[in-house]
């Protein structure tokens, strides 16, 4: 074992630039992976918050039968909950929103209509439900933030999608770097490796220093990543919290730590498996 570790050390030193290149690439990759994962976790919270808030309002005609409409709407399969807001309630609400301007009783006539307020089981059904509502007798108009809600949803989805796409590319890139580092190491020592084979050394014996090298590189880069990401994340959320206090940020230190531990595990795995695979392949190639 000591021999293998010494050999690994020699390989690392003899091949320092390549190792450094791999280290920086892997660190950047893992850092971005970590950042995207954290972003996704936060997006998911925002998204589910947003989804809960999607409310469809149907404004009713004076002539409408509120109770019947409520029943009809509650019977729709996509609807989670529905309630009536009378025009009196609506005016009261507006008065609270504009204190000092709309005092209770300051208006001679209430210009607001009654309305039905629905929440949906799945916010993606919003357009279907809106169309159904509009077709009901007694409904004057339907409002749900128009294009805004579905656009926001699809944008968030595509940001997440892009993020994972980027991470996938970066992981591939890291893998290429590891393959390359190992291959380079073995290529530079191809004569030595052939000699060892000719002297009767087993593949596993020859492979060991390279696999060790990969594991060490993976471990190092993921540790560096974790050490950078942890304080950076909490500094950022700290700042964001004061700026946008309504954002449902992930600030549970245990969850973040677990994620970073996973990252370290991934780094070691990618480093170890990558170099094992590469060493195996190039050993065969050299024969």
């Amino acid at each position, binding site marked *: 074992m000591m021999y293998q570790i010494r050999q690994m050390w020699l390989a690392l030193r003899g091949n320092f630039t390549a190792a450094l290149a791999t280290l920086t690439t892997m660190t950047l990759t893992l850092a971005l992976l970590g950042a995207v994962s954290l972003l996704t976790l936060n997006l998911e919270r925002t998204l589910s918050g947003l989804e809960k808030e999607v409310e469809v309002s149907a404004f009713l005609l004076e002539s409408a039968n509120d109770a019947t409409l409520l029943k009809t709407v509650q019977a729709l399969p996509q609807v989670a909950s529905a309630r009536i807001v009378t025009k009196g309630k609506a005016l009261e609400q507006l008065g609270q929103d504009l204190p000092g301007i709309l005092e209770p009783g300051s208006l001679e006539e209430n210009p607001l209509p009654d309305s039905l307020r629905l929440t949906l089981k799945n916010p993606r059904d919003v357009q279907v439900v809106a169309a159904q509502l509009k077709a009901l007798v007694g409904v004057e108009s339907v409002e749900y933030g128009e294009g805004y809600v579905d656009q926001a949803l699809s944008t968030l989805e595509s940001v997440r999608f892009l993020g994972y796409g980027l991470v996938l590319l970066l992981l591939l890139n890291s893998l290429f770097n590891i393959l390359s580092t190992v291959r380079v190491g073995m290529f530079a020592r191809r004569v*030595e490796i052939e*000699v*060892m*084979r*000719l*002297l*009767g050394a087993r*593949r596993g014996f020859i492979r060991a220093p390279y696999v060790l090298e990969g594991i060490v590189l993976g471990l190092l880069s993921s540790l560096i990543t974790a050490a950078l990401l942890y304080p950076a994340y909490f500094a950022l959320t700290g700042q964001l919290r004061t700026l946008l206090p309504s954002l449902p940020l992930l600030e549970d230190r245990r969850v973040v730590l677990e994620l970073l531990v996973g990252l370290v595990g991934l780094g070691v795995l990618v480093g170890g498996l990558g170099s094992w695979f590469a060493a195996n392949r190039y050993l065969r190639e050299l024969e």
Partner: protein
Amino acid sequence: MIQLRHVTLEYPGAAQAALDDINLHILKGEFVYLIGHSGAGKSSLMNLILKRETPSRGEVYLSGESLRKYRGGRVALHRRRIGMVFQDNLLLQNLSVFDNVAFALRVIGVPQREWAARVLSVLAQVGLESRQSALPRQLSLGEQQRVALARAVVSDPPLLLLDEPTGNLDPDTSGEIIRLVQSTNLRGTTVVFATHAREVVEQFRHRTLTLRRGKLVRDDPFGGYAL
């Protein structure tokens, strides 16, 4: 010990077979010279026995077993029973002289505490005791060749393959080397010795095989250098 039956070796893309229908039997404990012009096929024959190459046709047997079916770990085991000096030396460049020789002991699993005694004794026999911590590139080519020989004999292998082990040695030094090989042979090791050194073949007489353009043209039990 070694038997070749109708062995032909054609390198891919080569116009002519490097070895052509060789039949040969080398007994356990024998000392055999292999001579022939440059390009006659001496190294190719060695490479077949080491299973560095596989014959295009025919079979190579070691102790009655065909090498053809050997794979992976089995090849490694096979090679551990052979001590070889390659024509181009092939030392491990990042290891010291001592470690290069000790590598042969490491591979066959000799416990580490025995290394020092065995390695230093064989280094003394090739006259390089004082250079034990030098790296190969700090040696003259003749010195490297002697390290390669030390590595080949240190493990007392049943079979010794020597491919031009004195090509870079002066007559005095090569005489010492051959005496070392002969004493190994007397302890029971089978030796196959490819060489161009007429003086050596003439002075230390042994069974001599002559190759010409890949064909075994002469098998002289009493030796002598005649191409």
